[in-house]
Structure formats: structure tokens, C-alpha cells
């Protein structure tokens, strides 16, 4: 198993990349909404993603973030 430092050093770049893709997707949505002068008719999936991000932003130690996100995504 990796040490805590190895986890950070090994997975940093891939996680950075994943976060940038999410940021770009949210930018893309806002650009599209601005161009259409209206939000999407059904924002359930977007709301779900924002809830997932809020879960991830909690710095409290946890070992079940992936499981909680899967349960969240299962509501869609």
C-alpha cells in the first residue's frame, strides 16, 4: 500500500486533470446558458454534480467518499 505522501505524489496530476475537466464543463454550461439566455430545462444532473463537489470539499477525514458519491449519482 502507498504511504500518505505517495498517494498525494502519485495521484496529484491525474486528480488535477479531472478537476480541470469538471471546471471546464461548468464553464461550458454557463457559457451555453448565457448564449441561450436561459438555464437548462432540467438541471437535476448538474445539481447532483454540485452536491458531489460539496461532498468532496469537506476536509474531514473519511474513507467512504466514493461510496457516498455513487449513492448520490444513483438518485439520478
Amino acid at each position, binding site marked *: 500500500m502507498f504511504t500518505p505522501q505517495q498517494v498525494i505524489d502519485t495521484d496529484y496530476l491525474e486528480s488535477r*486533470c479531472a478537476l480541470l*475537466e469538471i471546471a*471546464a464543463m461548468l464553464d461550458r454550461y454557463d457559457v451555453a446558458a448565457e448564449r441561450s439566455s436561459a438555464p437548462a430545462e432540467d438541471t437535476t444532473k448538474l445539481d447532483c454534480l454540485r452536491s458531489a463537489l460539496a461532498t468532496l470539499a469537506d476536509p474531514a477525514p473519511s474513507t467512504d467518499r466514493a461510496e457516498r458519491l455513487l449513492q448520490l449519482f444513483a438518485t439520478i
Partner: protein
Amino acid sequence: MHIIQPHYHAIARTAQDYERMAMSGVVAVCEPAFWAGFDRLYPETFIDYFRQISEFEPTRADQYGIRHFSWVAVNPKEAENKELTAEVLRAMPSFLEMPNVLGVGETGLHKSTPNECDALAAHVELAMKHDQLVLIHTPHLSDKAHGTRRTLEILAGLDVKPERIWIDHVEEQTVKSVLDAGYWAGMTLYPVTKCSPKRAVDILERYGIERLLVNSSADWGPSDPFTLQECILEYRRRGHSSQDAIEVFHNNPCRFLGQNPKWDIKPIRIETEQ
């Protein structure tokens, strides 16, 4: 679809990549000089490397019907060695006369050290003296914003023609400053560490296609030449026409590179039979 790979390190890739690129419509690749993964010690090593990319590699590409062009420079990492850089710069003009060498590149910054900055200025001055195009690498990851600012500051202090300079590896935080200064901007699509195909399309949609180039990642590290085709697919998937795609992925490289008369591939336009 006719595609040009404007930034492709062919010596680090296999013949199978050439074959698959040819099958997907790639008609030309351009190979800038870059870092070998270790710091070379001898100017002669560079000279042999320049011979490899200007004499040998075109013969390999030709087997797949792909045109091969190249650029020569001391890359930013090795530019820290001032003596080596000076020797290689003295040898470069003879390569600039080769029939498929398009200019000076990739020069640029890595950690933006004083030696790197001096080497960048020396490369650009050499290129301008010989009326050459310039391809400038910008740093990776956390060094990118600062390195791009330094690059623009250095260029602002030199007598350059911005339309003949391509500043590469731009991302969301650097593209506007490069375009606003009148330079061409290149986006390099890497699986993890630089721009992604989707983000590149976002940038094309936000800033327009003028003076923007898109290149895949193709070197000896984690990279994938077909990130360019992924980007084309994403661009078309969002509703942009075939001609729009040709403008970005074929004609824009022709417009920049065609400033050097050695580049004889012309922009193309799809016509419908009447």
C-alpha cells in the same frame, strides 16, 4: 479530413503511429527539436540530432505518404548550459537552409532562469536575423503563467514580427495574453498534464479560430498523437462544420507555416459538385 500535426516529436514515436496517422488523414507533421529526457553534453550530439530530424525522419514519414518538416533549437532545459547553447546556435544557420526546416524551435522557458531567458532572446534574435519563424515552448503546470509572462516581456524587448512567432502550450490562463500581443498561440493536447481536447474546443469557441493552432502530444513521455483527432471529433460533435474543422486543423497551420516558402501545403476549401 486533411489534418496537420504542427508539433510532433517523431523520433520518439513508432512507425505504427505514422501508419495510423496516415489512415486518419494526417498529411504533414512538424518536428521541433526538444529535450531527450537527459541533458546532452556535446554540441555534436545536437548536430547529429538536427541531422536526424531534417534528413532521416522525412524518409520515415514518406513511407506513409506524410510530409515531414522540422525546427532546430536548444530546448529550454538544456539552455541552462550557456557554452553548449552558444556552440549549437553557431551551428544552426546551416540547418535553417535545409529544404524542410521551417524555423527556430522549440526555444522558450522551463524554469525562467536568467540563462534560459538569455537563450530565448538569442534564439529569437537569430531567427529574426535569418528571417525565420519561431516556435516558443512555455513552461508546464505551476510555472506556466509566470513563464508565459516572462516570455512576453522578453519578446517585447526585441525587434520581432509577432505574426511570425508561435507561442505554444497555452491554456485558459495564458491564451488571451498571447493572442492580445499579436502572436500565434498553440494548444497542446496531453492525456493529463496540459490542455485536453474538450478544453481546447472550449478555447476555440471562446476566442475564435484566428491565430490558434492545435497540436497533439507526441513525445517519449505519457502522450498520445491521437488527442488531435479526439479534438477534431469533439469540435465536429458540437456542430462545427467540416470546413470549420479544416480551417482549424489544416488551414491555420498552413497560414502560419506558409509564411516560410518551404511550406508548400496550401489551405483547402471543400466544394460541392453542382
